[in-house]
């Protein structure tokens, strides 16, 4: 026994301040209270990672760029990793590189489409304001992937993260229109019209195209509601923006002359929604008619 070592005599309660057990209980109580308060204060569904707060802290202003990269990766996966190669050089290295990458143009189909979802998911996590990523995810989930339930969920999340972005309401409205829920579609499209930003800033062309789409769909819904006057107002607004839209000009003329157009609004809505499909500039035949939205191809 080494006498130099201090002996550990049992501590007398109350002799030197509070007993250690009291300190442990106090700390445990504080931890429990902090946990309870955190649970109380946290909004359901507003987990830092889910809401993008984590990405905002980590990435700062570069989050848009990072999100864009994930979006580009989704496009790359959609094209099965095949991209157009530049044929500028004819040296040995360039020849090997060309031989390593298959040629052609192909896309993922059916359930395979789901493989782009993680990259769109990462894009929305990096920047929850990347509406395009939400829209593309919802488009493919509702369409070829056959998961409209998940599409609805994605759009609800988009709306939660972008409550003042007209595109969130536009996508919700179009989704409701596809599902045949016309009153709901009308509500969302009206809200989209309210949220469209005014002015002539950057991206005005894209906004004008979106606005024309929303007005066209809203006009068709007015027709379904037997309110042709309101429908004509919408169509005229579109024609004022895009005078070259002959189909819409003809439709307005038919309503004016006969009271109702030859093609029913439901049929036209179905055609427009079908045209609002993936449109690829090369390879597959693109049927980009009036109202077709090229941005639904992962660009």
């Amino acid at each position, binding site marked *: 026994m080494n006498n130099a070592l201090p002996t550990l005599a049992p501590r007398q309660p109350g002799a030197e301040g509070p007993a250690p057990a009291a300190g442990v209980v106090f700390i445990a109580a504080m931890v429990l209270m902090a946990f309870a308060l955190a649970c109380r204060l946290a909004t359901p569904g507003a987990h830092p990672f889910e809401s993008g707060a984590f990405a905002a802290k980590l990435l700062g202003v570069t989050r848009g760029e990072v999100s864009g990269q994930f979006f580009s990766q989704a496009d790359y996966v959609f094209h*099965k990793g095949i991209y157009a190669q530049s044929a500028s050089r004819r040296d040995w290295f360039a020849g090997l590189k060309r031989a390593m990458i298959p040629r052609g143009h192909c896309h993922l189909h059916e359930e395979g489409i789901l493989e782009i979802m*993680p990259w769109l998911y990462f894009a929305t996590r990096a920047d929850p304001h990347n509406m395009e990523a939400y829209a593309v995810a919802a488009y493919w989930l509702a369409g070829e992937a056959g998961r409209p339930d998940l599409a609805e969920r994605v759009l609800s999340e988009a709306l939660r993260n972008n409550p003042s972005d007209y595109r969130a309401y536009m996508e919700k409205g179009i989704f409701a229109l596809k599902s045949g829920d016309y009153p709901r579609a009308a509500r969302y499209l009206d809200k989209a019209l309210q949220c469209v930003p005014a002015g002539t800033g950057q991206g005005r062309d894209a906004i004008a195209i979106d606005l024309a789409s929303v007005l066209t769909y809203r006009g068709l819904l007015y027709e379904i509601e037997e309110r042709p006057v309101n429908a004509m107002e919408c169509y005229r607004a579109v024609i004022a923006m895009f005078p070259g839209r002959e189909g819409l000009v003809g439709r307005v003329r038919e309503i004016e002359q006969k009271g109702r157009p030859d093609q029913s609004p439901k049929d036209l809505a179905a055609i427009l929604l079908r045209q609002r499909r993936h449109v690829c500039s090369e390879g597959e035949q693109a049927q980009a008619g009036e109202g077709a939205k090229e941005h639904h191809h992962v660009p």
Partner: protein
Amino acid sequence: MIGRVLVIAQTVWLETLRRKDVYLLAVFALAALAVLMGLNVFGMRNLVGYIKETGLLLVWLFAWILAVAVGVRQLPGEELSGTVFSLLAKPVTRLELVAGKWLGTWSIAAAATAAFYLVLAAVVLVRGGSFDLAATAQALVLHVCFIGIVSALSILFSTRLHADAAATLAAALTLAAFLIIPHSAGYTGQMDGFAGGLLLAFYFALPHLELFDLRARVVHDWEALPAPVFLQIALYGLALMLLFVALAWLAYRKKRFSRERLY
């Protein structure tokens, strides 16, 4: 000679395993894979493509880190500890020392890479995915070539620099060769005169490490590379490895050791 080279390579293995670099990277890789597998992507949990892609990216990253980290510390480590004096006093030539260090670095990084591939394959198979066997085998072989080149470059720089400087230089050069050099040829047309010529010289002189990357083929289930293309790339890799090991030997064979300079 071969026997002595193998013994030196074996000491590299023992030293690396003792330092636990491989285990640390394996833990990182497994943790990252576990996080990826646990992701709830818009309510879907059975997706596998992104695990393949991200997993292979991690394998490439870790293999590169391992090759550089192990390679650059071999020769400076021997010199710092003074063991190089007793080593070279034995019947070991400097060529054998350089070759053994390179072989050890290459083989342990390659073995760790193969193990990472196996773990990733197991994860993908468990999730219901698949790998094209031929394409994956080609990808692994060319990946091993890449590791051999990076190991040789690391050894080459460490012959004349201390470990930190060699690591920085090897990392910068291999990154540039992988990410920038392949695209540099596209800019030569936009530059005229000396700058364009210099860029073109870099394009041809520096190693084209991007050729060894067949990840896209594995991830997107493309068929295996045509044999002539694969063989050309593998031979190119072998030539680069031999060139860098030879350069390392040339740089090391007349080196005068001075402990003070390395401190």
